[in-house]
């Protein structure tokens, strides 16, 4: 029994963990590998190293348009969801009121709803409202899916924020707005930046909602989807995908570092026995 358990815990579990990670990341590894391969079809053996697929990217006007659209949508969605997230996170971490938990749950719900259902529902609502589909409607959809993430990051920043810090500021003569500017904002700034980055990244990679809610303007994922129909365009898509992947990874890493710093700052420094 004990040998069995030892085998399970030591040998089998680590093998399992290794295979799991390989399964998760192997496809991701193929992307950059084939993006620098000279052959137009992604298959082994590799035929040679080239950067031409990357060099072609800035020479494609449709791609540049899509990138610009993604940037606009991403920045707008990030700012909107973060502002709304700040309000919600502050209310949930600071005040006690009936239905607080329920509201928290409802805000987090889009995280687990099937995205295609959310997309279709949004489409129906927007059409009912008589809004024509555009990048603006994509922003609205992205705000909905970004808020749960924004909330998670911001709640960590606000939680444990010692209320007496704000009281101390008022006690020292500062107005409510001054207190927000001089104490609250600097304290939660890392969390806010982290939330902006997370939301931007999510919006940048999001396909389904953008696909349903955009009019004629494509975002990057929609552009990629369109390119996949042409086999000759595949290496370019792989190159673009690699860049997106790198950007997402970088942004998420910065966001996580900032989130941890924010949580550490508010929780350590504000506490009674810090």
């Amino acid at each position, binding site marked *: 029994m004990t040998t069995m358990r030892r085998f399970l815990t030591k040998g089998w579990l680590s093998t399992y963990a290794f295979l799991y990670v390989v399964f998760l990341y192997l496809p991701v590894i193929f992307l950059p590998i084939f993006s620098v391969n000279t052959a137009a079809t992604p298959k082994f053996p590799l035929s040679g190293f080239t950067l031409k697929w990357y060099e072609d990217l800035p020479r494609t006007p449709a791609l540049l348009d899509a990138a610009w659209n993604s940037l606009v949508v991403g920045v707008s969605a990030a700012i909107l969801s973060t502002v709304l997230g700040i309000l919600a996170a502050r209310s949930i971490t600071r005040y006690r009121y009936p239905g607080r938990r329920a509201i928290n749950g409802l805000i987090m719900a889009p995280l687990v709803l099937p995205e295609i259902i959310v997309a279709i529902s949004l489409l129906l609502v927007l059409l009912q409202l008589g809004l024509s589909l555009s990048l603006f409607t994509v922003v609205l959809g992205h705000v909905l899916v970004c808020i749960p993430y924004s909330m998670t990051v911001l709640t960590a920043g606000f939680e444990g924020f010692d209320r*007496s810090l704000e009281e101390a500021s008022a*006690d*020292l003569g500062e107005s409510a707005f*001054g207190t927000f500017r001089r*104490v609250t904002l600097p304290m939660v700034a890392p969390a806010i930046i982290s939330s902006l980055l997370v939301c931007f990244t999510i919006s940048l990679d999001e396909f389904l909602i953008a696909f349903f809610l955009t009019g004629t303007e494509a975002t990057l994922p929609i552009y990629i989807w369109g390119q996949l129909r042409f086999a000759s365009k595949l290496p370019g898509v792989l190159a673009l995908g690699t860049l997106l992947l790198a950007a997402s990874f970088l942004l998420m890493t910065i966001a996580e570092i900032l989130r941890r710093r924010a949580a550490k*700052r508010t929780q*350590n*420094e*504000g506490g*009674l026995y810090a």
Partner: protein
Amino acid sequence: MPERPQAERPMIEIKSVTRSYGAFKALDDASLTIKEGEFFSLLGPSGCGKTTLLRMIAGFDNPTSGSISVDGQSMEGIPANRRPTNMVFQSYAIFPHLNVEQNVAYGLKRLKLAGSEEKRRVEEALAQVSLTGLGKRLATELSGGQRQRVALARALVMRPKVLLLDEPLSALDKKLREQMQVELRRLQQAVGITFVLVTHDQYEALAMSDRIAVMFGGRIAQIASPKEIYQRPVNRQVADFLGGMNFVKAEIVEENGASLVLDTLGFGRIKTDKPKAFVRNGGAATLGIRPERLRVLWDNATAKFEVAGKVVERHYFGEITHLIVEIPGLEKPLSVTETNDFGADDIPVGTSIRLAYDPEALVAMAD
């Protein structure tokens, strides 16, 4: 010991202040006057309303009814940021994103002083709390005691009319706490600002205050000097909270304007001062005596007033020994604390001893 001269001008006037949360009264009809330059303590167990009262003086909470005025000015409708009070928070509430200097200068920024004047005042405040030279330190690099000093300097630099201290020493270890008690008292005397301290530590209140208000369950039980609170508590609750006290059942034989005659089983017939707040409740009363006011009589020594009994327990505490002495006729044995210089720590359990007392040390309390 000469009394420190004190202006009689009232600095804080609290008139029948009540604070209710629904049916619960955190503070119930509290009235008190704190004089200018006084070191005043609000003492009581947690939930007695002392912090509620302090927060109402600071402006973080408002009375349900009653009024608070500071330096003759009503505080009604005046928000915390416009009150002539500053507070040292229990958590210290040091701004973690600012260094020591920036923390201390926080409130000065709004006054828009000349740069050199601001710097001078920050330096002065840091010197007052012995933190000179640590101005550039970050909050993360400070010890608990240092953080406490920063909180003090940050409040003092504003030159408030009243400094409010919410359990400022509770997070410090015992040794540092005792050192800070002395320093706080010295600082208060140096700056001459009215200090209002909230504490649940009776020794802290006794050691630092000019006067103490003892509170229980939202009500003020007694307001008096430390000595009077300790020696002449108005009731058993106050007596108990301020340290050890032996309670002896007594019967009222005679009551007149200033004195009481009581019959007790262990101490016989006692004539004592009638406390100001004494309200007779039937024919019984309680007589209290502090354990250190009972002295062991050695060998054949005699005293004018003594009781005889038998040691039933002995507890050693280093500088003192705690004896539990059974007295014939008393329902509960007496606690006696005796310094160890005569060998109280060697008295065997079971020894018959005699205890001397001063009738002055006996305090009558309404039952």
